[in-house]
């Protein structure tokens, strides 16, 4: 199999142009699905028979939690591609995932603890999922810390790529060890979103919100990656050509 097509799309000018065309579409789709999901979730879906109206926070919480892990996966994939094929664009994408992913993690933790106050009676519980989410936040912070500590972009790219690959091997181990750790202390019967079957009136808005978050992530990540490519290629001739084409 030839990888030539991959290298073609990884060329900075082409990425810059395609990303620039894709971003408006993705952003509008994110806004539309997000609006539909919010109307469906906050307005149309019936209150839960046990949790009342309070459960509605899952329409933000669950997509944020899903995206926080998914962003790490995208970051690891892009970093691996950058390391193996020495692609500058892949490194730019990886670097752009980190802060978005970290904010999703913060959002998931915050909404989780706001939900925990009325439901569990406490803002913070050393629940396995909460704890592994917190460790994930630390992994993001370590990645960003390492990047900001290295001045040379090429070295920062490759060092942080090694770190994120080490992290991605460790993530399942951390997840299962944390599960195991707390299962010895206490069992939670309340937190079983995944297994509880949902009526379509709740499930459809939730899926819409997940799609909206995913599209939003793509839009923000691509915008940041575009800026990152601009910064890296600031002395290249195609930039002045692209900007010249915009000016005329």
């Amino acid at each position, binding site marked *: 199999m030839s990888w030539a097509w991959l290298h073609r799309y990884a060329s900075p000018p082409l990425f810059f142009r395609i990303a620039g065309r894709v971003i408006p579409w993705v952003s509008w789709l994110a806004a539309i699905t997000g609006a539909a999901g919010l109307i469906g979730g906050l307005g149309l879906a019936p209150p839960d028979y046990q949790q009342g109206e309070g459960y509605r926070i899952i329409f933000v919480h669950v997509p944020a939690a899903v995206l926080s892990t998914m962003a790490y996966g995208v970051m690891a994939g892009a970093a691996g591609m950058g390391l193996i094929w020495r692609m500058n664009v892949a490194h730019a994408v990886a670097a752009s995932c980190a802060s978005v992913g970290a904010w999703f993690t913060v959002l998931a933790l915050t909404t989780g603890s706001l939900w925990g106050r009325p439901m569990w009676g406490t803002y913070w519980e050393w629940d396995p999922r909460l704890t592994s989410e917190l460790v994930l936040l*630390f992994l993001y*912070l370590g990645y960003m810390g390492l990047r900001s500590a290295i001045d040379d972009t090429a*070295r920062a790219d490759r060092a942080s790529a*090694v*770190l994120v690959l080490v992290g991605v091997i*460790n993530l399942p*181990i*951390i997840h299962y060890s*944390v599960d195991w750790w707390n299962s010895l202390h206490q069992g939670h019967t309340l937190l079983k979103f995944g297994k509880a079957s949902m009526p379509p009136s709740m499930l459809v808005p939730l899926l819409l919100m997940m799609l909206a978050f995913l599209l939003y992530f793509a839009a923000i990540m691509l915008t940041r990656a575009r800026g990152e490519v601009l910064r890296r290629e600031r002395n290249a001739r195609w930039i002045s050509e692209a900007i010249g084409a915009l000016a005329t």
Partner: protein
Amino acid sequence: MNVAGPNSVSSGEAGWLLVRRDLRLALRRPGEWLQPLMFFFVVTTLFPLSTDPQLSRLRDIAPGALWVAALLSCLLALELLFREDGQDGTLEQLAVSGLSLSWLLLAKCCVHWLLTGLPLVLAAPLVATALGAPYAAIPGILAALLLGSIALSLIGAVGAGLTLGLRRGGALLALLVLPLAVPVLIFGARATALAIALEPTSAPMYMLGAIVVLSATLAPLGAAAAVRISLE
């Protein structure tokens, strides 16, 4: 690449030579690698001072105190792993020698563990007894710390390689390594707690063993990649 000549050595021989060299260097400067051990003693002393000094109460926090202190002192020791060889160019020579860098770094990790991990393990019975652990718990605590400190040395080597030569290396190293050390901490502290409660410790011990095997397999590769990037 390595050109075969009268003076060429295999990676295995070079690893052994490196072990002997590092050990000899360290034994001439005992103050440096004894510091993490002293730190371990000081940190474990802080726990009785900051909580209830009754032995029966201390026994409850003993696993946590022991493992947090061991983790922090391993972290402190990690800065010694590559710093000097990075500064004087030895690491560069190892990287361009044409020998397997991951193998050589594994040798360095072994020495590092002998000098900073093993003393912790040997000091653990004293500290554990002072924190109220029964004598029958000592073998379990020793085994848990033995496995855990090996894993921490190996995992830490990747972080030490990544932060080699950085200005804010120390604090960053902690931020990189501590989240990755969470499984070691969980299983190690769990095994210690079970040992103190005089219960069978095999389940967390097997997990610790698995982590040691996995990190001994992958961490040298990661550390070699990290060191090569840092030397560029």
